[in-house]
């Protein structure tokens, strides 16, 4: 099997908090998360606000410093690189964020923003000014931006155009991995589909790999090939999109998918499988992270212990005690070898 583009092993991101003079608590935004993104695929990190998906995505590529863990990229650990090696690795991982206007320097034109990565790395690229211009125009064409639009400032562009500039900028250095954090959430619904289609086309055209963060199940279903559902800093279910979203196994995933409203006039009642109020990661229960809201709790389940992420079927992992007993092949996956833990 080909090596995955990036492999995240046991990633932790804890934020220290001061809750008293002496005591120190930790906000475990990301807690022992492992996954990998295969070459050419779209892995979706899905979950509600506060589950840690954005923190997870940003920490995985070291835009936030991790508390613990390994990120294997191009055969090396991204977290222990420094200096030139790190800079060179950074060229191959790019990001597109939720709010395009906030991601652009208001004093720089669209064309200037797209050219910037080329300027930053020009010492190794050695491009002339005309070559840079040429490249910017080519890139702009692939995302559907006209030359006239390239001369405008971000505030004179629509949301969709701004986001396309950001995507273009991210592509300028021909990255391997693109991390996208809710890239369409801030856009009008009619524009969202266009941008998503564009992203899919670009993936085909340039053989890209995506790590895609979203809270929207419909978006996840549309772009994703595999999905990892997160709850309070942990991955609770991971598998192919059509399996996980259509027949989820983990109680939280089930509750989540039940809550998704469908524009179907025949549906008059939505049965919510999630009890209790949304939780925050400040106050985690010991053991299974979902136990306080789980409708499936029974006496004989060891909810005080943290369940491992087990492979229920080929490529389908669930972190839940319900599946540990009675499963025909409960193989706790090992780290390394390109598979999830």
């Amino acid at each position: 099997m080909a090596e995955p583009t990036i492999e995240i092993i046991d990633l932790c991101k804890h934020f220290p908090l001061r809750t008293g003079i002496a005591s120190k608590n930790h906000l475990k935004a990301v807690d022992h998360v492992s996954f990998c993104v295969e070459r050419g695929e779209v892995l979706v990190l899905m979950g509600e606000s506060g589950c840690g998906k954005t923190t997870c995505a940003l920490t995985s590529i070291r835009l936030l410093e991790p508390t613990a863990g390994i990120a294997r990229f191009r055969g090396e650990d991204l977290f222990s690189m420094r200096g030139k090696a790190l800079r060179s690795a950074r060229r191959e991982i790019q990001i597109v964020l939720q709010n395009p206007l906030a991601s652009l320097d208001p004093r720089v034109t669209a064309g200037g923003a797209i050219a910037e990565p080329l300027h930053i790395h020009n010492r190794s690229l050695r491009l002339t000014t005309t070559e840079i211009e040429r490249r910017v125009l080519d890139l702009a064409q692939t995302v559907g931006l006209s030359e006239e639009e390239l001369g405008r400032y971000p505030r004179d562009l629509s949301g969709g155009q701004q986001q396309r500039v950001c995507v273009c900028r991210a592509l300028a250095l021909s990255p391997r991995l693109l991390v996208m954090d809710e890239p369409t959430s801030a856009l009008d619904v009619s524009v969202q589909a266009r941008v998503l289609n564009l992203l899919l086309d670009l993936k085909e055209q340039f053989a890209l790999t995506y790590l895609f963060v979203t809270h929207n199940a419909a978006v996840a279903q549309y772009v994703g090939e595999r999905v990892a559902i997160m709850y309070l800093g942990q991955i609770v279910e991971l598998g192919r999109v059509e399996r996980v979203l259509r027949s989820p196994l983990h109680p939280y995933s089930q509750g989540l998918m039940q809550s998704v409203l469908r524009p179907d006039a025949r549906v008059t009642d939505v049965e919510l499988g999630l009890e209790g109020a949304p939780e925050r990661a400040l106050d985690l229960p010991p053991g299974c992270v979902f136990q306080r809201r789980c409708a499936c709790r029974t006496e004989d389940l060891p909810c005080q212990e943290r369940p491992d992420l087990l492979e229920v079927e080929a490529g389908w992992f669930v972190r839940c005690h319900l599946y540990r007993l009675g499963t025909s092949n409960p193989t706790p996956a090992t780290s390394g070898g390109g598979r999830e833990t």
Partner: protein
Amino acid sequence: MRGKGTRSYVLYAMRRSPLSIVGITLILAMTVLAIFAPWIAPHNPYKVSMGDRLLPPSLTHPAGTDIVGRDIFSRIVYGTRLSFRIALSVVGISISVGVLLGALAGFYGGVVDLLIMRVTDGFLAIPSFALAMVAAAVLGRSLNNMVWALALVGWTWNARIVRSAVLRIRNSDFMLVQKALGASSARMIFLHIIPNCMGPILVQASLQCGLTLLSSAGLSFLGLGVQPPLPDWGLMVAEGRTYLPARWWLVTFPGIAIFTMVTGFLLTGDGIRDIIEREVS
């Protein structure tokens, strides 16, 4: 890097803020006086004429003469040069140091920030005029030393404002992207953060010119700043003070000059601030 639409936009914004127009006009007028002083001033500002001492305002001496017969109006006109020189020097030094330290403090945070901010707090806790007085006295009474003294007091204000402007940008999505692109710290600070702080910096520069002028006039009034025979307006008030209340012109006109120029700077600064705030909202 500003767009083509900016010029008309600025003019439009200025029409909405008439106070800034007044301010800019005053400064421009003063600039004209400074540049064309030799042609505008009727007499030599340094020429002593013992026969014409303490004359009240007249056609030949629109602002009267002082204790050694020098034409006050001419001294006021030449004084504009001195005032610009003082204001621009002080603000130039102050902003250079302040912007750099403020940007570093805001960008790097942590220990650097703590250190710089504590020092700034220390300076700010001391009444600024007192500090300026002490510095001027310690360094020796001269124009140049006064400039350094005022810059010593002024940089802290610049540092604070730049720091908060930087902090606002520092945590934005934009900086995250820059980091992902592999931009170096220097690039982020000088190409992106500081240019985007130019607005507040410009406002500050203008306001600070006005306030510096007030302080320098005060210092010179006390004898700690500009020394005779230079035509500093504060100095002129001090020189004329002993001849009050009868010879009111010795004190009134220099004061009006200070007032006019300071108002010009302050209004301009306020006006720029209004324009920027409109642009943001």
